[in-house]
């Protein structure tokens, strides 16, 4: 019946109201998009123009020198490489860890399962803030891992895994057990059933987790900030561009910071535009199942 909605004929008064509502949506959309446009267009302005200010969001003269400077002098090539390493690392680890754990939680019964599951849930709600990064930082220093980005990758993946495990478990629950049975008859073990039968069926939820965990790694700020406090060459974009702001020569480097912020948001916005379905689907799926 809902399908008929498209054929509803609106009276002139209704049409007018709908036009007003549309304008309202458009105004809010403009306000939402404006800050992003401002930063992107601003990154093509000359620093002189940025320092004067004004109300024009388009550059008087378009230049790409800011990007060249950011890339070559301000270390943004390294920051970008680190951001990619971080986000891809978090994504791959999350996919492997969550799909295996979700599969085991869904298919296996073992003593203490409910308790372990309960602890996972409990720690989703216990939030003590940044203090928990302190012991992790000291741990990484102790095992001499603090000279690489690996602890950031591992701790980020470890901190975010619960949601992904819940997503996977819910999805594996919906995979018919008859398929496991068929696999077993064909000689697959417990892991074989996971690798050959369940995993291929998990594609939609794996896509969601890939997207969400990539975003998590790309956008992480406090965690990499704490871990790279004394090591500029390990900083991802989020930290690198903000350190520029704190560096004191803040006002002088507006053009570099505009270019840097743009480099930090464009990749994730492109991913969002291409896969918005998974971003938005993942949010609500997590809420229902988590």
């Amino acid at each position, binding site marked *: 019946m*809902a399908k008929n909605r498209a054929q509803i004929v609106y009276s002139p008064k209704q049409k007018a109201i709908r036009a007003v509502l549309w304008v309202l949506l458009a105004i*809010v959309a403009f306000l939402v998009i404006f800050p992003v446009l401002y930063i992107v267009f601003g990154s093509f302005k000359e620093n002189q123009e940025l320092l004067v200010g004004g109300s024009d969001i388009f550059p008087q003269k378009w230049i790409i020198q800011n990007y060249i400077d950011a890339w070559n002098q301000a270390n943004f090539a390294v920051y970008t490489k680190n951001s990619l390493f971080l986000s891809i690392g978090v994504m791959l680890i999350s996919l492997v860890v969550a799909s295996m754990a979700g599969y085991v939680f869904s298919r296996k019964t073992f003593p203490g399962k409910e308790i372990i599951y309960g602890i996972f849930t409990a720690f989703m709600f216990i939030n003590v803030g*940044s203090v928990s990064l302190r*012991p992790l930082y000291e741990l990484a220093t102790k095992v001499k891992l603090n000279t690489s980005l690996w602890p950031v990758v591992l701790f980020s993946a470890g901190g975010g895994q619960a949601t992904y495990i819940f997503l996977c478990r819910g999805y594996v629950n919906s995979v018919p057990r008859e398929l496991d049975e068929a696999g077993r008859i064909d000689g697959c073990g417990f892991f074989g059933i996971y690798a050959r039968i369940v995993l291929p069926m998990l594609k939609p939820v794996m896509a969601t987790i890939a997207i969400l965990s990539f975003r998590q790694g790309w956008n992480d700020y406090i965690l990499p900030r704490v871990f790279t406090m004394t090591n500029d060459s390990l900083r991802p974009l989020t930290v690198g561009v903000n350190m520029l702001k704190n560096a004191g020569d803040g006002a002088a480097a507006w053009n570099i910071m505009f270019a840097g912020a743009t480099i930090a*948001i464009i990749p994730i916005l492109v991913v969002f535009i291409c896969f918005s379905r998974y971003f938005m689907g993942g949010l609500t799926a997590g809420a229902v199942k988590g």
Partner: protein
Amino acid sequence: MASGLMLAPSIIFLAVCSIYPFIWIFRYVLYNYDGIPAHTRFTGMRNITNMFADATFWGSVGTTFEYALWKLLFIIPLALLMAVLLNQKLRGSGFFRGVFFMPTVISSSISGMIFTFIFATGNGILNGILQSVGIVNAPVGWLTDTSVVMASVIIMSVWAGFGNYMLYFVTGMTSISEDVYESSRIDGANAVQTFFKITLPMLSPVLKVVLMLAITGAFKDYEAIMVLTNGGPGTRTNVMFLYIYNLIFGTGSNATRQIGYGALLSLMAAVIVGAVTIIYNLVAKKLDDVV
């Protein structure tokens, strides 16, 4: 056997990233610790008595409540209104939905940064626009004037977050049957009546979850505020998790770092958030019984 190995990575992560830090916090609650192990001293109840006398901390708790209240007051109605408009299936609804959701995929540190530029007093574009159309004569100190800085922070956090809640509302509304709207139309209900008599009541389970997420979320915000104002000017926007962050990871020397004390305040903050959540749940339940 295989299942144990497959579960092992997640269990190790849970133990290292969640359980270990939690226990570690309790280890230091009664200690003076500045990051150098040799300096660690047991100080008995001093951290606790300090906490109750710490006006800056309780001030930051007050600021957190103020921030959360203002944020909720704007973000929930805006998210709900936009969801209702999107539900009218106007042309371009999918596009608008994507635009509203977009800020949520941007790192909070970068949103904080973008708004630092927008709100800059001298060369920020907001003052530029306001002055060029003549709304203000002199530049407004969006980030330096104690009377408006909270508004700036709220604007940023509403911008960054309302898309999330909008999406929950949109999803909730699609599950309301078309027939219900059909019959209300036949009964001659207007748009406002339809919203208050049908949409809102049928949305109330979703609304309760969203409110819960929004409340706990607002109390935990500090990353973007750190970038935008770092709690300033003075302590005007110093929310509690930001105050705690600076105690533990502050850029100052080791002497100003108070990790043991920060651990205690973190627990206190967690208790405060927990208490607010519980009170909210009780109120939500009461409302359920009344309506």
